[in-house]
């Protein structure tokens, strides 16, 4: 059952990833990316990351992608114009080389990883919001506080860049 769920959502993620790269219209790419993020959230849940799965749905698929779709709508971005001609040979050769490269990487991962027991749903219970919060406010307190400064700088930067007279 675990393997079946993994395979289904991994297939959705890879299909949506290919669709992101292959689509010419940015709104189609954005919807594909939402598909990738949703299926990755299910896979996180399988690995015991309850909090991260919810954060993935709320922050990534919710907030960030809404921002992307909003900007695409605002700029009225249409389909990508073919400004330069890519030779047909190099396009297919590139696809082939990408597949060969990914196959090689998969083989190396498969060969080099020590044989351990597989993933069982529920075997790791440490990914709850309570466990993450406890770690975040004790061991990782300084990075957490620095993050707030980073967010503040990002807000200021976005406001300054989006002003009328830049």
């Amino acid at each position: 059952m675990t393997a079946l769920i993994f395979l289904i959502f991994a297939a959705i993620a890879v299909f949506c990833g290919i669709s992101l790269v292959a689509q010419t219209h940015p709104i189609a790419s954005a919807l594909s990316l939402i598909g990738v993020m949703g299926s990755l959230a299910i896979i996180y849940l399988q690995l015991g990351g309850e909090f991260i799965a919810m954060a993935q749905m709320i922050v990534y698929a919710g907030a960030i992608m809404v921002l992307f779709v909003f900007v695409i709508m605002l700029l009225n971005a249409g389909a990508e114009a073919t400004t330069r001609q890519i030779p047909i040979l190099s396009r297919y050769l590139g696809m082939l080389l990408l597949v060969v490269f990914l196959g090689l990487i998969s083989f190396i991962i498969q060969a080099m990883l020590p044989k351990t027991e597989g993933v069982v749903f529920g075997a790791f219970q440490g990914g709850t919001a309570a466990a993450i919060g406890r770690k975040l406010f004790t061991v990782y307190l300084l990075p957490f506080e620095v993050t707030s400064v980073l967010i503040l700088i990002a807000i200021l930067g976005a406001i300054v860049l989006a002003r009328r007279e830049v």
Partner: protein
Amino acid sequence: MPATVPISWYLILSAILFGLGVAGFIYRRNIITVFMSIELMLNAVNLTFITFSYTLKKVDGHIFSFFVMVVAAAEAAVGLAIILTVFKNRQTLMIDDISSMKY
């Protein structure tokens, strides 16, 4: 089909998604799609963090992945503001037309 999922499958999925992100980053010409490819790569890295967090039975990987999400949110806000400004000044989103810093 095995009853449990080997750890390597998760890492292979992560590698495939990262490779697709790199391919989109190089191949696409629309600046928004290039930006979305970067987000895809960040997601693939997050999957690796969560997988090793499961393997080592430690919660630290989740914290790192949480910080990656925070940085991605900040990056998206600033990056999209830059894209808006570029579009306001150049009236184009194609990266082939925004190459004046190249020469």
